[in-house]
């Protein structure tokens, strides 16, 4: 033990760190932990994760998922008696605050809007996650192969992405949606995932291309590692930042896309249900029953906004260049604090 200490002391001049800022921040941590810590500091992302978790939990627990029943008394298909005129929301401030039977209101045939919105949220989240997963898998594999091997596989990838890029996603999405859509959410997710992966693949390819030039890849090869090992053991962990961040951003794009397609009638259509489909179904009743329009829209926005902020937080956390630069205001505060301290100490000294 003592010998170790001696050695470390002997090395002390080495430790006149290259960048003390960095050295200070990273002591005793793996890369992943640093990222995680930075992520935790991102307020927007933290709030978003909380909100998103809450929404997801609510959506899945309230109306139940698959055979599991939920705690909400109504479901999204059965119609009931219309309580308020027009099916307006029943919550009120009489008696401090009461939800009533149908807090989000009812539609024209008396179905409970809360149950419908929750079910729609559920499906929309499932579609979003499926799209994200499909993109993650295809995009990572294709991008990694193209970036690592370059050559024809790379040209092929670039041509395919070109093909997807010259047309708006919504156009290809409509065609695929028409092909596989209807009431089946997961299938639609798979189909949309199959067109949204190209952006991620491009980015992973770029990352792999630059990682490929890094010396640790050469040194792994010199050590005798196979291509497969180099790609997945050495390069992939280093590309995780790009992959995670962009998968998140694809997901935020995905939920809006699914809603738009369902709205146009090429995504999920009745009896299937999703947030976009709800808006589509109720858009004409905006003037008469605005709650039917507001609620599903609000949930789309909240989910997409949360995912966007989470993505932003992840990007900041993974970005090595992002040194947390204090804001102008923080600096002023710091200045004042130290000035006070200096003033205090000088006062004390004078007093002495």
């Amino acid at each position, binding site marked *: 033990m003592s010998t170790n200490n001696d050695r470390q002391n002997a090395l002390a001049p080495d430790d006149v760190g290259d960048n003390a800022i960095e050295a200070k921040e990273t002591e005793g941590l793996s890369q992943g932990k640093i990222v995680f810590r930075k992520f935790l500091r991102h307020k927007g992302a933290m709030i978003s994760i909380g909100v998103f978790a809450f929404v997801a939990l609510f959506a899945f627990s309230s109306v139940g998922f698959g055979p599991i029943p939920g705690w909400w008394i109504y479901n999204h298909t059965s119609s009931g008696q219309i309580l308020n005129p027009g099916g307006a929301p029943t919550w009120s401030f009489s008696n401090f605050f009461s939800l009533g039977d149908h807090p989000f209101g009812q539609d024209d045939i008396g179905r409970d809007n809360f149950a419908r919105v929750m079910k729609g949220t559920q499906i929309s989240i499932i579609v979003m996650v499926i799209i994200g997963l499909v993109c993650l898998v295809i995009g990572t594999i294709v991008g990694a192969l193209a970036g690592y091997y370059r*050559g024809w596989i790379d040209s092929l990838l670039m041509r395919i992405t070109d093909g997807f890029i010259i047309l708006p996603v919504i156009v290809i999405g409509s065609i695929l949606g028409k092909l596989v859509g209807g009431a089946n959410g997961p299938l639609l997710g798979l189909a949309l995932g199959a067109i949204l992966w190209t952006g991620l693949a491009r980015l992973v390819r770029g990352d792999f291309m630059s990682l490929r030039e890094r010396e640790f890849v050469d040194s792994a090869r010199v050590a005798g590692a196979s291509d497969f090992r180099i790609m997945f053991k050495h390069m992939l962990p280093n590309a995780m930042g790009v992959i995670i961040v962009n998968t998140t951003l694809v997901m935020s794009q995905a939920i809006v896309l699914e809603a738009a397609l369902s709205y146009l009638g090429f995504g999920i259509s009745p009896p299937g249900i999703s947030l976009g489909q709800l808006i589509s179904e109720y858009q004409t009743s905006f003037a008469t029953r605005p709650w039917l329009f507001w609620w599903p829209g609000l949930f789309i926005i909240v989910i997409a906004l949360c995912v966007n902020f989470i993505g932003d937080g992840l990007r900041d956390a993974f970005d090595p260049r992002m040194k947390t630069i204090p804001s102008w205001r923080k600096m002023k505060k710091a200045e004042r604090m130290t000035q006070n301290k200096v003033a205090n100490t000088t006062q004390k000294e004078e007093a002495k």
Partner: protein
Amino acid sequence: MSDSTSTAKSPVLDVKDLGVNFWVNDEWWMAAEELNYTVNAGEVLAIVGESGSGKSQSSMSLLGLLPSNGRATGSAKMGGTELIGMPPEKMQQIRGNEISVIFQEPMTALNPVYTAGFQIVETLRVHLDVGPTEAKERALELMRLVEIPDPEERFHSFPHQLSGGQRQRIMIAQALACQPKLLIADEPTTALDVTVQAEILKLMRELKSKLDAGIILITHDMGVVADMADRMIVMKAGRVVESGNAEEIFYNPQHPYTKQLLEAVPHLGTGIEGEAFGAELSDIEDSAVIHESDAAHGTAEDTADAAGSSSDQAAHPPSATLSPFVTEGGADRVSGLAEAAEAAGQPMRGDDIEMDSTETYYHPGSQADFSQPSALQLRDAAIEYPAIGRKKAFRAAHHINLMVAPGEVVGLVGESGSGKTTIGRAALGLLPTVEGDMVINGTSIKGLSNKQLRPLRKEVGIVFQDPGSSLNPRLPVGESIGEPLYLHEGMKGPALSKSVEELLTAVELPTSMRNRYPHELSGGQRQRIGIARALTLRPKLLIADEPTSALDVSVQAKVLDLFEGLQQEYGFACLFISHDLAVIERIASRIAVMRHGFLVEIGKSSQVVANPVHPYTQRLLSAVPVPDPREQRKRREARDAVLEATANA
């Protein structure tokens, strides 16, 4: 801290108790404090220190150019005006006008979308009331002053169309535009090749005498300091450890850190002197004195001969290390080197070799003999970067004949783009050998696939330049070191741990470090890990690609010591690639010089250093500044002569 030399000139800048702090993680982090110095007109003050010593930040604080989380305290007065805490509007009138800066990276310090001329004109027109035509005239004048060839044409060139040296000249012209009273040169030559550095240093010296400005030279290179500085400040971890007259500090350093720093700097010409030369500072002083008088009467041919004969002597250990005779001989040889270079234009042995000659000059005994057993053989080899997509294949090395005997260390030296790294990578099978043959330990690796190469990988190790980039940031270093063992010998579990620990001990690191990640280690520690990893399988050949150039000098010295020790212990052959002749000279028994993809000269270290034949080698050698002001003064004249003689090559 007071100056022993009292110059008659008035101080341009008077810095008192200057401190720089950064607000990091909710507390002030000290980058520099208690700085006191003055800069006089017409004088060069060098601020020396290793990375993280705060030398650069403290100077930037003078201009209010600190990053947004930085803060400067104390006082810096320029002719009665306080610079610290000056409002930005006022500071704008000082910047570029009274104080100007030359930055380190000429590649990135000029705006890529504007022409060189425009950027100079811009500076002129901000501060002086001149019209565009007049400003252009002035800019052209400045460009002539900094010796840019074809100024009228270069005026309209964009930065990407200029070479590194030309860009740095534009930077200088821009800095001089308003005839500033103070010039801050922040590592002005660090990013440049050594011959370009020599040209820039020469230019700066000339300008210094022409202009009456005070210069703050920030650098880590003791050679540059010896070449330029009148006075110097040595900084360590934000504090001044020593300050005063440059020569005094060089010859009589007081602070242990300064001593350590000066000792750590490899000194070109040490190898041919044997142990005696440069071991004690007094030796250098003595020898330099004799050296001066000696050079006064010695003719070029005499000294060249003397150098030749004495280099033979160097093979035998000097009998009496400190006897005046030997030191005199040593001085002779150094001046011989300088004189020989100076005389490059005159009839000499190397005279018949043109600068652009691509033939290899073999010093006696260095002819490649491929019948001998060897660790590495390149037989008339040509190496290409393969074509990618539409990018054409690029041939980076032509007709290379090179041999490394088992257990021998061969240095490969050259400037950027010379193809030295290419050879190293090809020896590892990372680049294809397209012509000739590449033989590793008796097996040709030409045309082998990655799979076929795998068993051969055990025989060759590599240490890369950038220790930060050569270790996988996501793997603990122990895993990186152990990977070759796992892959080649299937070693796992406790056996692997034991081997890893042994290796860590061998490179003088605590075994507890195996679970650390690369970013938690300092540069020197990382490079030790890099060496450990390269030696895991006890290779017969090691390729060391600039293993120390990213390190600070004191760290570099330690890593080189370690490397030498390990080489003796393990007995591997090594191809040591570097741009730094002094390092190569220290470590290698033979030196090969590369230029534009051709091997131009090869010979024993003493032969090449003392008696270079190819004009390019001469130019390269003369361009290296040595960390010794008096010797460097001598060399400077030789250098300027050689630069002139071999200009625009």
